[in-house]
C-alpha cells in the first residue's frame, strides 16, 4: 500500500542520529580509556576522544532537534508523536510531550550528560581522560536505550524514529490504515491532562539534571581509584557534588509542590515509590558530599566517600529501573508500563555496581591511612556519623519501597501497609532528629578535637533560645504530639544555631556563609514539613449535627463533606456554600464561597475557591485542587465526587413536582435508595385504619411498613394496597420532609414480595458536590526553607569554585 504524505525521511534522519550517538559514545569511551594510559600515544588518543565525544554531542542535538520538528509538525505517522501529542495542544506543552514518553526522558537525561561532559572536557584537566571515559561509557549505555534494534530476537532499546504508528502490532488491523490517505484525518492521542501544566515543563528537566549530576562524583571516584590518585579527585569533584545536591533537591521539592498544587491526594509527599526512588539517592549524595569535605580537610573517611559516591549513582540507576520496569505496577499511583527494557536496565545497573565495588576492593589496601583515629569530639567524627545516619535512613526507605522486587524475587505476596505514610514517618523521625541535631552542632565542632567548655559556651545561646522557642511553639500551637516534639526542637535548634554561627563566628561574611544558609534552609524545610503535616486539619470531616456512624454500621465518618447547591454548612472555622458549576474548556469548575462571621455576627464572604475536574474522555477525568494561600496557613480543597452531567440548569422546572416513578420489587428486609435516604421494607400487615383512609368494609387493604433513614432522622412510611371492586386502588404515602412519594403497587401473596414505586420531588435532585478540605498550617515555612536551602548551596558552590 502506498500511503500518501508520510514523512519518512525525517524518521530515517533521526534514526541515523541515534546510531551515530551510540557509536561515537562508544568510540569516545574507548579512546578516552586509551588516553588514560601513561604512554606516548595517550595524547593522540585524547584528541580522537575529544572529537568523538563532541560528535556524539552533536548527534544527540540532532536527535533532539529531529524529535522537536516531528512533534511541532504533528507527524502522527510516528507512534511516539501520535502517543504524546495532538493537534489542539497548545505549543507551550510541546516540551512536556517531548519527555512524556520513556524514550523522550532517556533523551533528556542523555542530553544533560552531554552538557556536563562538554564542560568537564574543559575543566577536568588531569582527570579528563579517566573521568570522560567513564561518562562516555555511561552515555553509550544510555544511547543504547534509544536504539530499537533486534539482536538475537531481543530488542535493545526503544527508538522513537523507527516505530511507525501503522506498524504497531496492536493497531495492525484497524480500518483506518486501509486508507492510503489516513494521515489527512489522523489526530494524536494528546498529552495526559494531568501533565498539561507548567510543572511538566520545569520539573522533569530539573530532576533529570539532578540525576545526571550524580555521574560526576561517580566518574571522579572511578577515575581516582583507576589512576590510584586516591585523594586528588575530591577537590575538583566537590563543587559538582554540591551542584547535584542543590539541583536534585530542587527537583524533588518541585515534585512535591506540583503534587500539592495539582493533585488531589492532599499533601506534598506521599512516600510514593517513585518519590522515594529520587529521595534516596539525594540523601546518599548529601552524605557523599559531606564525606568528601571531611576527606579534603582531614584525609579521613576515604573508603566511605568512595563507597557512597558509587552507591549514589547506582541508586539512580536502580530508581530508573524501579520506575520504568513496570514492577511497581500495583503499589504506586504513578502509572508505568514495561517497555521491555527492564533487562537492559538491570545489566546497566549491575555493570556499574560491580565495576565500582571491584575497583574499591582492589585498591582499598593502598588508601593512605590516617595515623590517629578521629577523636569523638571532632567535626569529622560527627559528620561521619551524619553520613551514616543518612545511609541508614536511605536503606529503610529503599527496603520498604522495593517490596515489589522482593515479591518477584522470592515469590511473596506482600502488599504495602494501609497507612504507609505513618510507617515511613515514624521510622524517619529519629533519623531526621539526629540529622538536624548534627546540623545544629556540626559547625561548632572543630577538626581533630574540640574543647568541651569552649564548645558549650558557643552553643549555649542557640540552645537556650531554641529550647525557649520550642516551648513557646508547643504552647501556641497546642502541639500535642510528644514524639514529634523532639524533631520540633532539633529543627528549630538547627536553624537558630546556624544563623547564630553566621552572625557570631563568620561575622556576617556572606561569602563563607553558604553552608550555614543551606543548613538554615534545610532546618526550615523540616520544620515546615513537621508543622504542616502533624497539624493538618481536615475541616471537611463529617461535622454534621449527629455522628453519621451512629445510624448503623453502613455509615461512616470520613473526610468528605456533601455540599448541596445553595445550602450553607459549617466547615472548620468557615461557613461554606456551593454556588454552582461551570465549564471552562475541558475543565468543570465548582465554585465554593467561604464566609467568616465578623464582629457583629454577620457572615462576610472571605474568598471563593474553585476546585475543578478536568474531563478527558480518553484518559479519564482528573480532579485538581484549588488552594488559598495565607501567610500562616493554606486552605486546600478538592472535589472527590461530582455529577458531571447536566451542566446547564433547567430554569423553568417546577421543583415541587414529583419526578418519574422508580419501581422496585422488595422482599422483607430489602433496602432501596432515594437520593437522600435509605428505605427498608420491614413488614406488611392488615392493620389499617379503614375509617381514616376511607376504605370500605369489603375492600382488601394491606399496608406496607417502610422505614426511611436519612442523614439525621428516621421516618416511617405506610403506603396502602387496596382492592376495591376488583380494581387495585393504592393509597400512596407522601413523606413530606424527604420529598418522597411511595405507592404500594403489587403484592405476591405466595412469597410475600411486594412492588413499591418511589417518586422523588425534583428539588431532591439538586446539584451537589462531595468535597474534601484541609488546612495546612505554616506550610510556607517549607517553601521558604527550600529556596533558602538552594541559595545557600549555590553560594557554597560558587565559593568552592573560586578557591
Amino acid at each position: 500500500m502506498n500511503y500518501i504524505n508520510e514523512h519518512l525521511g525525517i524518521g530515517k534522519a533521526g534514526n541515523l542520529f541515534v546510531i551515530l550517538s551510540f557509536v561515537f559514545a562508544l568510540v569516545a569511551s574507548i579512546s578516552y580509556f586509551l588516553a588514560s594510559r601513561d604512554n606516548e600515544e595517550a595524547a593522540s588518543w585524547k584528541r580522537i576522544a575529544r572529537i568523538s565525544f563532541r560528535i556524539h554531542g552533536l548527534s544527540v542535538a540532532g536527535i533532539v532537534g529531529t524529535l522537536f520538528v516531528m512533534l511541532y509538525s504533528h507527524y502522527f505517522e510516528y507512534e511516539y508523536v501520535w502517543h504524546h501529542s495532538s493537534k489542539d495542544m497548545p505549543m507551550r506543552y510541546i516540551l512536556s510531550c517531548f519527555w512524556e514518553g520513556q524514550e523522550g526522558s532517556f533523551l533528556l537525561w542523555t542530553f544533560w550528560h552531554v552538557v556536563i561532559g562538554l564542560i568537564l572536557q574543559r575543566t577536568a584537566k588531569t582527570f579528563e581522560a579517566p573521568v570522560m571515559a567513564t561518562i562516555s561509557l555511561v552515555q553509550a549505555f544510555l544511547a543504547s536505550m534509544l536504539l530499537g534494534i533486534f539482536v538475537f530476537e531481543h530488542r535493545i532499546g526503544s527508538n522513537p524514529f523507527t516505530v511507525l504508528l501503522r506498524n504497531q502490532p496492536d493497531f495492525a488491523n484497524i480500518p483506518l490504515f486501509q486508507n492510503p490517505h489516513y494521515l489527512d484525518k489522523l489526530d494524536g492521542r494528546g498529552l495526559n491532562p494531568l501533565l498539561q501544566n507548567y510543572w511538566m515543563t520545569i520539573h522533569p528537566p530539573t530532576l533529570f539534571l539532578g540525576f545526571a549530576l550524580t555521574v560526576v562524583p561517580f566518574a571522579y571516584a572511578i577515575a581516582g581509584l583507576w589512576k590510584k590518585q586516591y585523594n586528588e579527585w575530591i577537590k575538583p569533584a566537590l563543587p559538582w557534588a554540591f551542584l547535584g545536591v542543590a539541583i536534585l533537591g530542587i527537583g524533588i521539592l518541585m515534585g512535591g509542590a506540583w503534587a500539592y498544587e495539582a493533585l488531589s491526594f492532599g499533601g506534598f509527599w506521599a512516600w510514593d515509590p517513585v518519590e522515594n526512588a529520587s529521595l534516596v539517592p539525594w540523601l546518599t549524595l548529601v552524605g557523599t558530599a559531606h564525606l568528601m569535605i571531611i576527606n579534603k580537610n582531614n584525609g579521613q573517611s576515604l573508603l566511605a566517600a568512595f563507597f557512597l559516591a558509587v552507591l549514589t549513582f547506582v541508586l539512580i540507576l536502580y530508581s530508573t529501573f524501579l520506575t520504568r520496569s513496570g514492577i511497581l505496577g500495583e503499589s504506586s499511583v504513578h502509572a508505568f508500563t514495561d517497555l521491555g527494557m527492564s533487562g537492559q536496565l538491570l545489566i546497566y545497573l549491575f555493570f556499574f555496581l560491580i565495576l565500582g565495588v571491584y575497583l574499591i576492593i582492589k585498591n582499598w589496601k593502598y588508601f593512605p591511612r590516617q595515623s590517629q583515629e578521629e577523636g569523638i569530639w571532632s567535626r569529622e567524627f560527627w559528620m561521619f556519623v551524619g553520613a551514616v545516619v543518612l545511609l541508614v535512613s536511605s536503606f529503610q526507605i529503599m527496603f520498604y519501597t522495593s517490596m515489589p522486587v522482593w515479591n518477584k524475587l522470592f515469590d511473596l505476596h506482600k502488599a504495602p501497609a494501609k497507612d504507609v505514610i505513618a510507617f515511613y514517618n515514624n521510622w524517619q523521625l529519629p533519623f531526621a532528629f539526629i540529622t538536624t541535631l548534627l546540623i545544629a552542632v556540626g559547625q561548632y565542632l572543630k577538626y581533630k578535637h574540640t574543647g568541651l567548655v569552649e564548645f558549650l559556651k558557643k552553643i549555649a545561646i542557640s540552645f537556650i533560645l531554641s529550647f525557649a522557642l520550642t516551648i513557646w511553639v508547643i504552647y501556641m500551637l497546642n502541639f500535642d504530639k510528644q514524639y514529634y516534639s523532639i524533631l520540633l526542637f532539633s529543627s528549630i535548634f538547627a536553624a537558630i544555631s546556624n544563623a547564630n554561627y553566621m552572625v557570631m563566628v563568620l561575622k556576617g561574611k556572606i561569602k563563607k556563609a553558604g553552608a550555614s544558609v543551606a543548613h538554615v534552609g534545610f532546618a526550615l524545610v523540616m520544620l515546615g514539613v513537621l508543622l504542616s503535616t502533624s497539624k493538618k486539619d481536615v475541616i471537611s470531616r463529617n461535622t454534621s449535627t449527629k455522628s453519621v456512624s451512629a445510624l448503623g454500621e453502613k455509615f461512616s465518618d470520613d473526610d468528605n463533606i456533601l455540599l448541596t447547591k445553595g445550602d450553607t454548612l459549617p466547615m472548620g472555622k468557615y461557613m461554606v456554600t456551593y454556588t454552582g458549576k461551570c465549564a471552562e474548556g475541558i475543565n468543570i469548575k465548582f465554585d465554593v464561597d467561604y464566609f467568616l462571621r465578623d464582629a457583629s455576627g454577620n457572615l462576610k464572604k472571605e474568598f471563593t475557591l474553585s476546585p475543578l475536574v478536568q474531563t478527558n474522555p480518553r484518559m479519564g477525568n482528573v480532579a485538581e485542587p484549588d488552594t488559598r494561600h495565607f501567610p500562616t496557613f493554606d486552605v486546600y480543597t478538592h472535589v472527590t465526587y461530582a455529577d458531571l452531567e447536566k451542566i446547564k440548569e433547567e430554569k423553568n422546572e417546577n421543583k415541587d413536582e414529583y419526578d418519574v416513578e422508580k419501581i422496585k420489587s422488595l422482599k422483607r428486609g430489602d433496602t432501596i435508595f432515594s437520593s437522600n435516604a435509605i428505605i427498608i421494607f420491614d413488614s406488611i400487615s392488615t392493620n389499617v385504619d379503614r375509617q381514616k383512609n376511607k376504605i370500605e368494609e369489603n375492600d382488601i387493604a394491606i399496608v406496607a411498613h417502610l422505614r426511611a433513614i436519612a442523614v439525621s432522622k428516621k421516618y416511617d412510611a405506610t403506603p396502602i394496597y387496596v382492592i376495591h371492586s376488583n380494581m387495585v386502588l393504592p393509597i400512596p404515602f407522601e413523606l413530606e420532609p424527604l420529598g418522597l412519594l411511595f405507592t404500594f403497587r403489587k403484592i405476591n401473596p405466595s412469597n410475600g414480595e411486594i412492588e413499591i414505586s418511589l417518586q422523588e420531588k425534583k428539588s431532591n435532585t439538586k446539584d451537589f458536590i462531595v468535597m474534601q478540605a484541609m488546612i495546612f498550617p505554616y506550610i510556607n515555612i517549607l517553601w521558604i526553607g527550600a529556596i533558602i536551602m538552594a541559595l545557600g548551596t549555590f553560594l557554597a558552590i560558587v565559593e568552592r569554585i573560586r578557591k
Partner: protein
Amino acid sequence: MKKVHIIIIIIIAVAIGAIFTTLNNTSTYADFGEAAKEPGNEFHVVGKRDKDKEMVYNPKVDANLFSFYMTDNNGVECKVVLHKNKPQDFEHSEQIVLIGKMKMPEKEFQASDILMKCPSKYNDGKPQASK
C-alpha cells in the same frame, strides 16, 4: 574497638530493625477466597469491576459509602462495600486494588481504601480519524 567499628555495628542493628519492621508492616495480596478464610484480617485484593452488576452511591445519604461488585484475578466475584466516596472515573478503571477485610457470613468485602489503575497512558486508545 575502633569507633568506626562501633558505628558499623549500630548501623547493622538498625538495618536489621528496619527489615524486621518492614516485614511486620506489610499487608498481603490475596484473592477473595483467601480473604474469606481469614475474615478479620486485612488484605489487598486485585481485580476488575463487574460491569454487569449494580453500583450504588448516594452521597446525600452518606458521601462515604459506595458499593459495587468486583471480580478478582481468579474469577471469583464478590460484593464490595467501600467506606469512601465513589472515585471519580470509576467506570473507566481497568484494574482495582482494594484494601479491606472480608465480612462473613454475608460474604461482603468491607474496603477501607481503593487504588485504581485507569487506562494506562501507554495502552489505551486506538488511532482515530479526527472529526
